[in-house]
C-alpha cells in the first residue's frame, strides 16, 4: 500500500508528558439496552499536537467513545477533563453544541448533513450555536452564505455554499464537514472512519490538512480499520477490545503485528494473512456477459463508457481502481438497480437489460452495495428479518424457525457481535451491520455475486474471513464473482483476473501476479 502517504516526522515528543494533555477521559462507562456494555471504564488522554489512532475490531466501542466526547451520548460513569489555562478541569459535554464550544468536533463515516438544505443552511446551525462571526438566530442566510464563501476561499476547500446537499458527491459532503471543522476552529478533531470512503487523492490532501492542525497544537483522533495507514500517520495508537482499553502505545515503538495482537488477541490475529487464498478453480462456462455497456450517473453524466466483460462460473473477477470511476454504477446496472443507456447484459444467456432487480435476484445473483449504511439495510428490522429479506422470497409462509437457525449460523461464522438475533440492526456497530448483509449475500448467492467494497468498514479478521468465503464459494459452488474494491490488496487477494477501472473504462485483463506498480499506474493515469 501507499507507503508515502506521509512521513510522521520527528514530532513524537509528547508521549508521557502530562503537561501536554488537552483532554482526559477517565473511567468512562456506557451500556445500552440489550444489555451491551459498549465501554467499560475507559481512560484515555489526548495530547496537544498529536494524531491518535483509535483501533479495535468491529463493535469494540470506538464510535461510542467519540460520540461521548462529541456530546451525542451521555456516559453512565466517568468524567472528562479539559485543559483550561494550565490546569485540567472537569467539563460536562451534554450536546454537540457543548462539544463544539469546547473546540471538539466529530466527523463520521456517514456525512451528518441535511440533504434538503444548502451547504450554507447546514452551516448556519453551527455558526449560530457558536456565534461565529456574530451570527445570531435572526441573522439572514444571505449573510451566512457570504461568510461561508469567504471562509472556504481562505481555507482552500472549493464548495458552492448555495448548493443543496443532495446534489453533492460523497467526497464533497465530507469536505463540507471538514470545512465546518476548520471554521469552528476545532482543537480536537474526531474522525470516525471519516476518511475511509474517500478516494486516495482526497485522503492524501486531507492528511496534509490534518498535519497542519497538528502543528498548530490540535489533536486528532482517527478511527480506521486500515492499520497500515494508522501506523503511517499516527503518533500513538490506542486499542479498544470489547469496551476496554487494552493498550496505548507510541506508534514508533510498535509494529503492525503487535497492534494486531492487541486488537484481536494472539489466536485470532494469526488468521490475518494477505497472501492470496490459493485455490485452483477450473473456469466454467461464461455466466455474466457484458457488451458495450454505457451507463449514466445520478446527474446524467456518462460514467460507464463502453464496458465489455465476461465473468465465468467459478471465477473471481476483481476490478481495481479509485472509487468514483464508474465501478459503483457498473455494478448497480448489472443487478438492475440502475438504468442502462446502451449495451447488453446477459446472465446465463438471458438478456437482463430490462429485467429489474427482483428478477435478476431470482436468477441467483447476489449483491453487496457500496455505502451500504446509507442504502442497503432496513435499520428498524432485526437481524433475522434482514436476513430473511432475501433468503426466502417466494411463498407466503416464511419459515422463521429455519431462518432463525441460519441467522444464528451466520452470526457465528462471521462473528457478528449482537445481543440477539432479534436485535434491530440499527443497534449494531457500523461494521457489524455490514457483516450481516455481507454474510446474507455471500451465503445466499446461487449463480453470481456482485460486490462493491464488501469489506471497507470491517476489521481485518472479518475482512479476511469474508474474502476467504468469497473464494470458497466461487470454487466449491461454481459461483461467478465480480468484486470492485478500492483496496488493491483485497483485489489482489481474491481475484483470478484483474481489471482496472478508470474514467468509465476497463483496462486489462491482468493477472494477480502482475507487478503492483503496473496496476497502480493504470489507476491514476
Amino acid at each position, binding site marked *: 500500500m501507499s507507503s508515502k502517504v506521509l512521513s510522521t516526522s520527528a514530532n513524537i515528543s509528547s508521549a508521557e508528558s502530562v503537561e501536554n494533555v488537552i483532554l482526559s477521559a477517565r473511567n468512562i462507562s456506557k451500556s445500552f439496552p440489550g444489555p451491551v456494555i459498549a465501554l467499560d471504564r475507559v481512560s484515555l488522554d489526548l495530547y496537544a499536537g498529536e494524531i491518535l489512532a483509535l483501533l479495535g475490531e468491529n463493535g469494540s466501542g470506538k464510535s461510542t467513545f467519540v460520540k461521548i466526547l462529541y456530546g451525542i451520548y451521555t456516559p453512565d460513569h466517568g468524567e472528562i477533563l479539559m485543559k483550561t489555562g494550565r490546569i485540567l478541569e472537569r467539563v460536562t459535554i451534554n450536546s*454537540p453544541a457543548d462539544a463544539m464550544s469546547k473546540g471538539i468536533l466529530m466527523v463520521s463515516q456517514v456525512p451528518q448533513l441535511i440533504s434538503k438544505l444548502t451547504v450554507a443552511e447546514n452551516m448556519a446551525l453551527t455558526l449560530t450555536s457558536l456565534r461565529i462571526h456574530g451570527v445570531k438566530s435572526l441573522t439572514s442566510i444571505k449573510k451566512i452564505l457570504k461568510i461561508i464563501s469567504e471562509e472556504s476561499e481562505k481555507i482552500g476547500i472549493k464548495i458552492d455554499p448555495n448548493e443543496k446537499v443532495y446534489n453533492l458527491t460523497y467526497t464533497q459532503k465530507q469536505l463540507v464537514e471538514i470545512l465546518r471543522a476548520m471554521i469552528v476552529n476545532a482543537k480536537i478533531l474526531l474522525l470516525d472512519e471519516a476518511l475511509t470512503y474517500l478516494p486516495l487523492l482526497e485522503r492524501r490532501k486531507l492528511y496534509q490538512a490534518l498535519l497542519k492542525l497538528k502543528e498548530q497544537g490540535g489533536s486528532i483522533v482517527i478511527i480506521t480499520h486500515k492499520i497500515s495507514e494508522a501506523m503511517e500517520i499516527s503518533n500513538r495508537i490506542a486499542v479498544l477490545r470489547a469496551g476496554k482499553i487494552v493498550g496505548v502505545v507510541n506508534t514508533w515503538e510498535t509494529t503492525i503485528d503487535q497492534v494486531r495482537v492487541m486488537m484481536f488477541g494472539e489466536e485470532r490475529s494469526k488468521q490475518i494473512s494477505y497472501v492470496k487464498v490459493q485455490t485452483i478453480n477450473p473456469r466454467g462456462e461464461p455466466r455474466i456477459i457484458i457488451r458495450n455497456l454505457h451507463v449514466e450517473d445520478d446527474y446524467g453524466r456518462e460514467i460507464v463508457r463502453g464496458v465489455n466483460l465476461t465473468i465465468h462460473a467459478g471465477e473471481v473477477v476483481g476490478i481495481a481502481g479509485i472509487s468514483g470511476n464508474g465501478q459503483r454504477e457498473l455494478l448497480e446496472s448489472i443487478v438492475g438497480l440502475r438504468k442502462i443507456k446502451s449495451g447488453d447484459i446477459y446472465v446465463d444467456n438471458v438478456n437482463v437489460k430490462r429485467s429489474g432487480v427482483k428478477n435478476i435476484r431470482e436468477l441467483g445473483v447476489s449483491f453487496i452495495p457500496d455505502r451500504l449504511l446509507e442504502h442497503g439495510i432496513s435499520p428498524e428490522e432485526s437481524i433475522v428479518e434482514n436476513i430473511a429479506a432475501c433468503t426466502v422470497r417466494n411463498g407466503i409462509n416464511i419459515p422463521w424457525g429455519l431462518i432463525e437457525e441460519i441467522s444464528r449460523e451466520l452470526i457465528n461464522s462471521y462473528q457478528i457481535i449482537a445481543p440477539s438475533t432479534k436485535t434491530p440492526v440499527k443497534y449494531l456497530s457500523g461494521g457489524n451491520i455490514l457483516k450481516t448483509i455481507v454474510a446474507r449475500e455471500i451465503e445466499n448467492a446461487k449463480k453470481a455475486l456482485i460486490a462493491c467494497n464488501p469489506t471497507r468498514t470491517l476489521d481485518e479478521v472479518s475482512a479476511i474471513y469474508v474474502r476467504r468465503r468469497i473464494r470458497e464459494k466461487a470454487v466449491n459452488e461454481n459461483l461467478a464473482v465480480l468484486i470492485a474494491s478500492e483496496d488493491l490488496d483485497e483485489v489482489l487477494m481474491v481475484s483470478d483476473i484483474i481489471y482496472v477501472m478508470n474514467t468509465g473504462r476497463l483496462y486489462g485483463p491482468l493477472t494477480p501476479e502482475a507487478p503492483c506498480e503496473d496496476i497502480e499506474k493504470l489507476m491514476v493515469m
Partner: protein
Amino acid sequence: MVIETTIILRLTAAFTTMYLVALGHSIFEKSGILNLAIDGVFFLSTGVTTAVVVPLTWLLTARGLSLVLSTTLAALTAGLATAIIGIFMAWTLTKLPISHGAVGLSLMFLGYGLGIIAGYEVRLRVGSIRPYTYPDSLGIYLAILAITVLIGLLTYFFIFKTALGTAIRACGENPHVALALGASVLKTRLIAGLLGFFIMGVGASFFVLLWQKYWDIKTYLLGYGWLAFTIALAAGRHPIVLIPLAFMFGGLVEFSITLQARLGLQADLAKMLPFIAALILMIIYGSTKLRRIFEPPGSLGKVFYKEERTI
C-alpha cells in the same frame, strides 16, 4: 353595494381565520412535530376568547376605551393560552420518547374540555357575544387582513431566510443531524411551539371575533381545526402557498351554502367540498415535480430519542 361589502367582510374573516391557524400549525410542524392537537386547540382558543373578551370589554369600555382594543387584547390572550399548549407539546415530544399521535390526540380532547370550561359561563350570561366582537367595518377588516398577510410574509422570511428558521426546518428534516450540527432541538422546537401556537390561537380567536361572531360549546363539532390542518397539508406548509389556498378553502366554507343551492348539492356533500379539493391538490402534487416542494418534513411525527443510533 351592501351585499358586496358583507361578502368582502365574510371572505376576509374566513381567510384570516383559516390562514393564521394553518400558518401557525405549519410553523410548528416544520419543526418535525405532528400536530394532531390542532382541532382541540382551535376550540380552546375560541372558548378562551369568549371568556376573556366579555369582561375585558366591560372593563375597557367603562373607561372609554374602544371595542377594537378589547377584542384585539382578547385575541392576543387566546394566543398566549394556546402557546402554553404548544410549549408543553414541544417539550414532551422532544424530551420524552412518546408517540406524537397519542400526545396530540390527548391534547385535542383536553382542548375541547378546557374550551368548554373557559367559555361556557360567560356565554350563558351574555347570551349573544356579537356585541363583544369586531365591528362590521370595512376599514378594520382590511387592516386585519393587511396585518395577517404581513405576518405571513414575515413568517416566510423567518422560516426560509434566517438561521433560526433554518434550524426549525432542520429539526423537522432530521433532528439527530440538526443536533450534530450544533442546534438545540429542544430550544428550536420550543420556539416553534410558542410561535406557531400563538399564531394559531390568535387565528382561531378570529373565528369568534371576526368571522362567525358567535360561540357555543357545540362549536367544537365543526372541525374547522381539521380544515386548517388540510389546508396546511395541501399547501405543503408553505407560508406563501397557504395564502391562495386559505382564501380558496375559506371561500369554499363560507359559500358552501350558496354553492349547495346553486349546484343543487346535498348539504353533507357541500361540506365535503374543501376536503375533496385538498385531495385533488395533493394528488396533483404527488404525481408531478411539485412533490419535492410540498413534501412533508422528513422526520414529521417521528419519536426523537437523542441516543438513538442513527447510523
